[in-house]
Structures are given as C-alpha cells and as structure tokens.
C-alpha cells in the first residue's frame, strides 16, 4: 500500500519537476538559438510534445493519490465520510473499465512499436529528423495507466477497510491543489 503510494508520488513528482526544467530550458534555448544565432533545431517541438505526453501519462496516478481528478461535489460532498467511501466502492469497478481499456490499448500500441511477431524488434522512431524513439513514449501509456490502476486498487482497499472497521487504514497526506 504505502509502496504503491510512494511509487505514484515519486513518479509524479519526478516527472513534474523534470518537465518544467526540461521544457522551460528547451524553449528558452530554442528561442535564443532562433533569434540570436538563426540556428533553430529542427523537430525540437516533437521532443517537447513527447516529454509532455510522458508527463501527464506518468503523473495520472499521483493526481489520483492526492484526489486531484475533478469531481462534481454537489451531493457527494455533503455525505458522511463512510457513505462517500461506500459510493467509491460502488463506482470503483466502473472506473476500472476505463483504466483497463487504456492499459490494454496502450499495451497493444506500445508492443506494435517495439516488437513484432514476424519481424522481431522494431523500435519505432519518429519521422522527424531527430529520429526520436517513439516506442519509449508509447510505453508511458500502459505503464502510467498501470500505476493509476494500482493507485485505484489501493484506494479501494482503504475504502473497504474504512467501511468495514470504521477506522482509517492509514493517513494519506493530500497537498492543496490549485487550478
């Protein structure tokens, strides 16, 4: 449990900090290169896009951990914690449908980009001139959604424990989220 939390948290935080550092760095360097030296790097935008894709895929679990996925708190927020936990138990399998489909489809995409039955290793790269390793990016989807799957299961176990024993299993520290 705490292992799952920690995995989600550190993956999310790591990608969070890295993305900002890399993106801001790349953009500033790119703009300076273009205007000061007239020597832009072709295809750098695809690299940035790829980073960004990896970023939100890998951080989905962290967002789930801190309860950042937006809900409609009209009725739900007025229930007692126990009733909320019961509702979460009921909706868990429904949400799982979506996550499982993402894992499955992401897995197929990633496999197609990596290894084929009759051609062996493919290791698909980008069409641009930087030859970006596209297969690495495609793997972030099944891996990221798998983390989200684990995180949902962890939440399910916590809710179940809480509903049955009326005690919290452990404390999850949730930072404040501002949009």
């Amino acid at each position, binding site marked *: 449990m705490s292992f799952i939390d920690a995995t989600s948290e550190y993956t999310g935080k790591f990608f969070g900090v890295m993305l900002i550092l890399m*993106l801001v760095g790349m*953009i500033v360097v790119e703009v300076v290169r273009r205007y000061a030296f007239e020597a832009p790097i072709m295809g750098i935008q695809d690299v940035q*896009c790829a980073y960004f894709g990896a970023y939100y895929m890998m951080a989905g679990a962290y967002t789930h951990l801190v309860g950042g996925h*937006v809900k*409609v708190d009209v009725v739900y927020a007025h229930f007692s914690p126990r009733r909320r936990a019961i509702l979460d138990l009921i909706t868990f399998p429904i949400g799982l449908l979506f996550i499982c489909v993402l894992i499955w489809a992401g897995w197929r995409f990633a496999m197609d980009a990596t290894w084929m039955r009759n051609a062996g290793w493919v290791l698909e790269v980008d069409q641009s001139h930087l030859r970006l390793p596209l297969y690495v990016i495609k793997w972030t*989807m099944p891996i990221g959604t798998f983390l989200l799957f684990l995180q949902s299961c962890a939440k399910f176990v916590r809710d179940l424990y809480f509903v049955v024993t009326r005690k919290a299993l452990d404390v999850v520290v949730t930072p404040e989220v501002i*949009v």
Partner: protein
Amino acid sequence: MSIELITVLMFSGLLFLLLLGMPVAFATGALAVLFIFFLWSPEALVVIAVRAFGQMYQYLLFAIPLFIFLANILQKAGIIEDMFITFREWTGPLGGGLAIACVLVGTLLAAVVGVIGAAVVTMGIIGLPAMLKRKYNKGIALGSIMAGGTLGILIPPSVLFILYSLVAGESCGKLFIGGILPGLVLSALFCIYIAIRCWRNPKLGPPLSKEERAKLTWKRKLVDLRGIAFPIGIILLVFGSIFTGVASITESAGVGAFLACVCAATKRQLTWKNFTAASHQTVVATCMVLWTMFGAQAFVTFYIAVGGSEFISKLVLGTGLGPYGILWLIMGILIFLGCFLDWVGIMLLCVPIFLPIIKILGFDPLWFGIIYNVNMQMSFLSPPFGYALFYMKGVAPPDISMEDIIKAALPFLGLQFLGLIICIKWPIICLYLPSLMFTGFK
C-alpha cells in the same frame, strides 16, 4: 439503437455517475467504453487510445502546464502581494479602494497567468484580512476577490482559450487577443459597481484614514510602482510576441515561465523548495485538465460518431427560435451546466456539439469562443459548484461561512451576466482587436 435512446442513456448515465461522486474523467471514459463495447465492437475500443495519442502531439497543449507553473511561481515568490501593495496605495484613498485594488490585481494578474486559483487564493490570504480589519462589508470584500480572480481565465493568456482553439480549430492567438476587451469591460463593471456601492454607503468600504493617507507621499507611491513592473514586463513580452507572431504561444509561455523564475530569483525566492512545490502543484492541475480531456473526448467522440451532433442540431433548430433565440438557449444551457460541472467537462462535452449549430446560424466561431469564455466566468462563481467559491472557502477565516461566500458572489454573477449581454449585443468588443492582427498566423 436509436439516437434518442442513446442520448438519453448516455447523459442520464453520466449524470448518475457524477452524482455518485465519480471523477469526471473516469465517469465519461467508462461510459464511452461501455457504449463502444456494446454498440460497436471490442476492437473499436482502440479508438480511445488513438485519441489519447493524438492528444500527445498537440504542441499547443503544453502551454497549459507552463502557464499554470508561471502562476504558481509568481504566487510562491510573493509577487502577487507586491502588486496588491502597489494598487492599494493608489486606490486606497477612494471609498471601497481595497476592493477595487483586489479587482485590479486580478485583472493585471489575469494578463500574466491563464488560471484563476493563484489570484483567488493569494488575495484571499492577504487582501481579505486587510479589508475585514478596516470593517469592509463582507459581500464586497469576498466578491471583489472572487470576481477579480476569475478574470484570469478570460484575459489572455488563458488555459480555456487554448483548449477551445484545439476543440474548435480556431486560431488561439486570435482568441487570446479577442479576450482582452471583454475582460477589461468586466473588470470595469466590477470596479464601477464597488465604487458606486461604497460611494452611496461609505460604511461598506471605508477609505484609508487621514493618518494613513498622510504617510502615502507621491514619492512612495511612485517607488512602489516597481511592484507591478515585473508583471507588466512579462505581459508586454508575452502579448507582444503573440500579437506580432514572432513566437508561438507555447514559446511565449515558456519564456514567460523563465522570466517568472528570474523575477522570483531577484526577490531571492527561487529556492528549490518553492520551485518543486510549484512544479508539484502544476503537475496535479495539468493532469486534472488532461485526464478529464481524455475521458470527455472519448465520450463525445463516440456520441458524435453515432450522429448525436446532428440530432441535437435538429432538435435545437427545430424549436423555431430565431438565431439569437437559439444563441441565448445555448447560453442558458451553458450557464445551467456551469452550476454543476467544471469548465473542462463543459467545454469538451458541449463545444463539439454546439459549434455546428453556431456555424449553421452564421455566427462567427471566433466570437462564439469569446462569449463562451465570458459565459464560463459565471461557472466559477455559480453555486453549488464553483471553483472560486471553493478556493475562497479554503483560505477564508473560519467565521466566514459558505453562505456568506455564495451571497457575496451573487451580485458579481449578475455583473458577469451583464457583461455577457454586452458582448453579445456588441460583437465588435470581441472582434475588433483580432481583426487588427497579423493574419495567416495560427
């Protein structure tokens, strides 16, 4: 299955799941999975992943974390406080001056960041106690902070316009530039309203006392103008590059984020702790937007593919209302949804369905994007579900109840509605600046 039945099942299912407290992203996504599985085939589920990958390659999209980060770093570095101090010195001697200062901070900050949270939270922490200490009326104090902060999403740069431009295929630069005047109109409405209320009843917002005013020499006022120098520098740079087309929006956002870091560094606030905290908040906020997009996009892609868009068009056009009648009908639906859903969900569910109707009626999609945003201003303040209300409750002192906050929001909701009427009555407010822009640039 007929389209009527699908429509009813999909939307009642969505309503049901949302009321059960499911996150919007998972509720919409799961419904899309169920419907695709049963109505098409299991193989067709791949379409959800295809859309998700397509989303990865939208260069414009990652201006979103950059703008959110920009807001977070400015907040962490205390730049917003500086802005408030500057404005307070200039407007303080007026009745209701502090409340007007809050609206002005919101307006200026809106031109730097594309989100609302940073302004509402920070002004709630510093502006609200300052006003309550001076015996300001609660309604004026709370309302000015929330309404001023909400402008963040209307005055460019704006995360909402970025998403709209992707969903509707409009030029994001034009939307940005078009949002300026409506934003200023709303800001002016708020200021005038506060000034009139406080002028008629000075007890609502007493001006600074004589002693305090005596301390405010012209020299001090001018020196403290440097508090807004950095934000104005960032604004000029970001707008300048978008308006003239020298840099893409994402690049402007990146350079803006870099400048915000520089700005924080000059104040010795660019610590590793502040930087990582800002990044972590950014990652959660960005994921919230993007995962909601995932789910809602799958949902609406399916609905449009089975003919939902034509169905709704026929339904709406068949009401026999004139073009403006239908426009107001759409606005009414959006206002209603704004009370319950967040703007990302509304955008992805409604814009793809309503946009064809707007085009059939001969309205400019660019204009619709802007009035759509003006409309969404209300969704932040409209109870029971409004972000500004929640943020305010989160930072307000404990003796301020949710009822106080909602009551404070109501007159400003009215002003926002007035702003919407003005923008619909005189489209030139939205369309004048974009028409001056460098064309042929997207």
